[in-house]
């Protein structure tokens, strides 16, 4: 049992690059709060003492309105408010601007009742634990399998909701090695308070050791996400249509990522993750200009980790690698068949019943 301020500070540890900026803003607003509270309370105490009934003080010429005074105490808070807004907006935009992928670690996070599931680009998978290296920006791409969660890293001053059906993202740059909290800040059901984990920030040397051991719990070097995606690509026989170059049946996917796509209705959209995910799950929604609606709907047959892996693989495609022969179906896909992901349960019947799918192994 700890004893609060005597043993620990009243401020959470600041362990990310953004944290000092955050705390500066927080403390400034707190000081403003104190200024106004102390000022007003002092005025109240002064007035109620001086003008308590029966005291012999001047009570003549009671004023009931004074527009100048009103304008001052409307104007000063307004200016202060707009200034503080500008400050916090600047901070917020910088915290919501995702780091350059060339210099950052990308991690996938899948939230489900009631655990955090992290997946590194190099294939290491962690449950309720996340290991990152100090000093390198981390970008977490998140999606939920069931209800809304919120990935909350108090020491990093980072939080964002994890929503089913869409990718959201979160970035932070750890600056201090150590062990920190991972929390879920959005009520998500019975074991909400146990949806917690540890964030390990390691020095580069420690991180290298950790990687060497395969992320501590995998004996062999795991398949990378892109490799897993390649297996799915082969299994689903995507290359039957999507070859290295555009053909009458389907557009090529080589180098598609980040490019502007034009659709049959004339609208345009950048091919980001969400677009590719939707195009795999619901291809008919956005049909590229010049093509027919022929692609089958994979929405009910593909899991979220598989989509993630596929997207990563599609990003690596070049005209030469994309154009390979049809191969035999690869049955075993390491890293994807462990998850009984049931995000798409609607086609199986009533959603309410089926989504209570938590399997025994997931229960901690």
């Amino acid at each position, binding site marked *: 049992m700890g004893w609060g301020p005597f043993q620990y500070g009243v401020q959470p540890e600041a362990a990310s690059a953004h944290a000092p900026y955050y705390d500066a803003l927080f403390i400034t607003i707190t000081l403003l709060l104190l200024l106004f509270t102390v000022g007003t309370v002092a005025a109240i105490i002064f*007035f109620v003492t001086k*003008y308590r009934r029966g005291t012999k003080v001047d009570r003549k010429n009671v004023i009931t309105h004074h527009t100048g005074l009103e304008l001052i105490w409307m104007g000063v808070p307004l200016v202060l408010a707009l200034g503080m807004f500008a400050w916090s907006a600047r901070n917020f935009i910088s915290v919501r601007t995702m780091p350059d992928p060339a210099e950052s670690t990308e991690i996938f996070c899948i939230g489900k009742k009631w655990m955090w599931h992290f997946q590194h680009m190099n294939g290491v998978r962690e449950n309720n634990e996340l290991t990152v290296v100090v000093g390198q920006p981390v970008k977490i791409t998140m999606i939920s399998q069931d209800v809304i969660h919120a990935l909350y890293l108090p020491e990093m001053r980072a939080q964002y909701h994890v929503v089913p059906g869409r990718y959201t993202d979160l970035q932070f740059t750890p600056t201090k090695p150590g062990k920190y909290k991972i929390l879920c800040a959005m009520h998500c059901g019975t074991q909400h308070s146990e949806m917690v984990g540890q964030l390990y920030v390691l020095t580069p040397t420690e991180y290298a050791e950790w990687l060497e051991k395969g992320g501590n719990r995998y004996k062999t070097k795991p398949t990378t996400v892109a490799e897993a995606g390649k297996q799915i690509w082969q299994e689903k026989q995507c290359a039957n249509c999507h070859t290295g170059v555009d053909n009458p049946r389907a557009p090529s996917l080589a180098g598609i990522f980040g490019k502007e796509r034009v659709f049959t209705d004339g609208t345009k959209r950048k091919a980001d993750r969400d677009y590719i995910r939707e195009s795999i799950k619901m291809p008919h929604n956005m049909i590229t200009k010049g093509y027919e609606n022929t692609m089958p709907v994979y929405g009910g047959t593909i899991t979220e980790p598989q989509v993630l892996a596929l997207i990563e693989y599609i990003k690596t495609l070049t005209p030469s690698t994309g154009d390979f022969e049809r191969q035999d179906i690869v049955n075993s896909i390491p890293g994807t068949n462990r998850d009984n992901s049931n995000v798409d349960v609607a086609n199986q019947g009533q959603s309410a019943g089926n989504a209570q799918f938590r399997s025994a192994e997931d229960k901690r």
Partner: protein
Amino acid sequence: MSATLIDNATAEQPRNDRNYLNADHTLKSWLLTVDHKRIGILYLIAVTIFFFIGAVAAAMIRYELTSPHGILLSSEVYNKTFSAHGIYMVFQFLVVAIPAVLGNFLIPLMIGARDMAFPRLNLLSWYMFMTGGLLITLSFILGGVDAGWTFYVPLSTLSETQISLCLVGIFITGFSSIFTAVNFIATIHKMRAPGMTWYRLPLYIWSHYSTAIVILLGTPVVAITLFLVVVERGFGFGIFSPELGGDPVLFQHLFWFYSHPAVYIMILPAFGVISEIITCFSRRPIFGYRFIAYSSVAIAFLGFLVWGHHMFLSSQSVLQGLIFSIITWILAVPSAIKVFNWTTTMYKGSIHFSTPMLYALGFMGLFLIGGLTGLHLASIDTDVHLTGTYFIVAHFHYVMVGGTIMGYLGGIHFWFPKMFGRTYSEMWGRISAMIVFVGFNLTFFPQFIVGYLGMPRRYHYYYFAPEWQFYHILSTAGSTVLGIGFLLPGIYLTYAIFKGKKAGPNPWGAKGLEWEQAGSPPITENFEKPVLVLEDPYNYNPEEDSKMYEHEVESADMLGGRK
């Protein structure tokens, strides 16, 4: 200090003992009454019961959190407990407390009308309120609700608890407030006494008018949203279902479109009460009448345009977040106007430290802290670390408990002689006001710190961070004190209803139609004579008032030996 209660000789005493309370004594006459005052009393009984149900749930939560590993409850029961606390307190107490109890009782009295515009609709809304309350209670008896009072989808659509029943109850309660609001609007627009122009209305009426507008425009949106959740659960439709391409964030948009203005539904009437109390016990015309009146309207209007600040991190777009953030910052201004004007109202006043005034002063202190910590959350960047933590919990309890409940208790104490024709023990009143203030701060201030340290709200266990226990124990200790502070008025006010000293029509020496032209308690038709309003509200004279007490101060000076 019994001299606080003046028997104002100039005020009209009713010629006989006839009043609305003893007009008829049968139970039927109460249950089928269309008298706005009796309906106000019915609401008073109802919300008190719901308040104590919510308070018991709160006590269970506080007790459970004294240990990082929990004590009594399982996680499932814990979730149902905080859901019960939120649902009862928000939908069955805070939203209705001041408008339905004090508003119903006072609006016709204050504007010089004989009754509400639609008395039968008024009774109907009480019955709908009770039906809603009973359905909610039934849902908790049948197993409870675990989705919290916010009912976020898909959690609420997937949950296997009694959510549908509870939502139907909330839906009905919502329509009860809509009918009350319709009544308020028609009454305030059409039933004012001759000479009662808009600028002669007490500020209490202005704030209730703003509240009624917010209820009218906001409540239907949340009603339909919660209805859609019921439809999704009951008929298998899927409007917010991510599996069908629906957007769960849309639910949050629609929910907060009401539920943020709902905060103003809760706090605006309290502003009205405080405006009345401060002027009365400062014996001085209010400072900046028009600014306070229009700030109520501005809060009601702007309050509708800030719902997105509950969703800064809910994958709402950054642009939208920034827009909502700036409007929220601007919204701080009208609230600030009110506090500054109230403070200035005491300047050159003649301050009486009666029980209602103590509540009002407590309100101002707590609302300042509650409102200003709102800035931490309005600031879109600081919100990142604080949203979803105990900081939020502390913030809205400072506003809701420190604001609304302090205002409500102050109002009840202020108009108690008017409602029941008797006075309560002034000593006990002051003691309990102090206890509430101290207990409240002890309960909720530690939550600011534990929230800043990162404790998410609605957590049952926190064994991974035992350093938070210190603050939780402080908070639980404070809540015990607070509980006593809430129980005490329940006891001495109930005693005073039956055994209290008879009060004259105007025991506080206050201005206003309800004090000067109606008896205590008023007769069923409110006024014996036709009402004509000729002067502005709050026409007090602090100088004359203070003269009457000069001997008191002198004797106190002699006793205390001060200069």
